[in-house]
C-alpha cells in the first residue's frame, strides 16, 4: 500500500522536474528541475523494491540470519539508488560548473542568450 503512494510521489516529482527543465529560462532553475527529476527516479526505484511488511536488508537483532530471506526487502534497488545518488551529485556539480563558466563569459543566466546550438 505505502509503496504505491511513494511510487505516485516519485512519478509526480519526475514530471514536475521535467516540466521545470522544459519551461524555465534560468539555467540554475533548469538544474534544480534536473535535481527534482533525479530524486523522483530514486523514489520510484526504491518503491519498486519494497515488499509488504518487510524491513531493511541488514541482519541484526530484528532480523535473524536463519530466515532473513523471508524478512527483508529487495537489496538490489537500494544499491542501485545509492549508485544513482552519487552519479546525480557528480552530474549536478559538473552542470553548475558549466553555468559558472558560461556566466563568466556572457554575463547572463538566461537560456535565451545562448543561441549557438539552436536550430
Amino acid at each position, binding site marked *: 500500500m505505502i509503496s504505491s503512494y511513494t511510487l505516485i510521489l516519485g512519478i509526480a516529482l519526475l514530471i514536475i522536474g521535467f516540466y521545470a527543465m*522544459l519551461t524555465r529560462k534560468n539555467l540554475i532553475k533548469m538544474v534544480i528541475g534536473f535535481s527534482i527529476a533525479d530524486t523522483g527516479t530514486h523514489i520510484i526505484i526504491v518503491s519498486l523494491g519494497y515488499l509488504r511488511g518487510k524491513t531493511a536488508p*541488514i*541482519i541484526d537483532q530484528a532480523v535473524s540470519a536463519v530466515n532473513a530471506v523471508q524478512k527483508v526487502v529487495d537489496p538490489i534497488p537500494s544499491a542501485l539508488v545509492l549508485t544513482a*545518488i552519487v552519479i546525480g551529485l557528480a552530474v549536478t556539480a559538473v552542470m553548475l560548473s558549466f553555468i*559558472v563558466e558560461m556566466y563568466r563569459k556572457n554575463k547572463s543566466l538566461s537560456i535565451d542568450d545562448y543561441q549557438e546550438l539552436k536550430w
Partner: protein
Amino acid sequence: MIRNMAVLLAVIGLVAMFLPMVTDFQERENLNELAADYVEGSINDLNTPNVVTSVIVTYRGLDTLGEVTVLFLATVGVGLLLKGRKEDMIRISSSELLGTTSSVLVAMIMILGIYIFTHGHLTPGGGFQGGVVIASGFLLMLLSNVNVKMNHSIMHFVESFSGVAYVGIGVAGLVLAIGFLNPGILPLGRFGELFSAGAIPVIYSLIGLKVGSELTSILVTMGGEK
C-alpha cells in the same frame, strides 16, 4: 504558443507513459530469485550483515569501481572548468565564537564520517555516505573560517592512493581468491564483528576516503580558492 503546446504534449506524454506503471502496480510479496540469492550469499559466503553493502562492494563491485571513476571524472571536469577562477569575493573573517565552535564540530564530524565508512558492512552506511559526511566537515571548515588553508598535495595523495589501492585489492582478488574484487583475500572472521567480512571493510574505507577527498576538492574548487 507552439512552445507551450509542445511542453504540454511532453508532460501529457510522460503522464501517459507512467500511468500503466501506477495502475498495474502490485506490491511484491517475496524476493525474486536473484535477490534471495544475494541475501543468502551475503550471510553464508561473505559474513556481511548489511546486504546492500555486499551487493555494492562484491556482487556489483565492478559497477562501484565505474561509479568511483565517474565521480573522479566529475572532479576533474569541475577542476578543469573552474581552473584559475579569481572572483572578487568579499571575505569577512569569522568571529572567535564561530571559528572555535566549528573547529570543535569539524573534528566530531570527521570521526562520525570515519565511523560510518568503517562500519559499512555492519550498520546502515558505507563508503559513499561516510565520504559525504567527511566532505561536509570540510565544507563547514571552508564556510566558517575564511583563512583556512587546504594542503592540496595531501588531498591528492589520499585520492590517488585510495583509487590505486582499490584497483590493487581487485587484482589481488583475481590472483588470490576467485575473481576480481572478491573479498576472500582476507579471513572472513566472525559474523557481525568489525574485523570480518574479508576485504569488504577495507574496500569500503578506501571508497570513503576517495569520495571524501574528491568531494572536498570539488568544494574547494567551487569556493574559488587557489
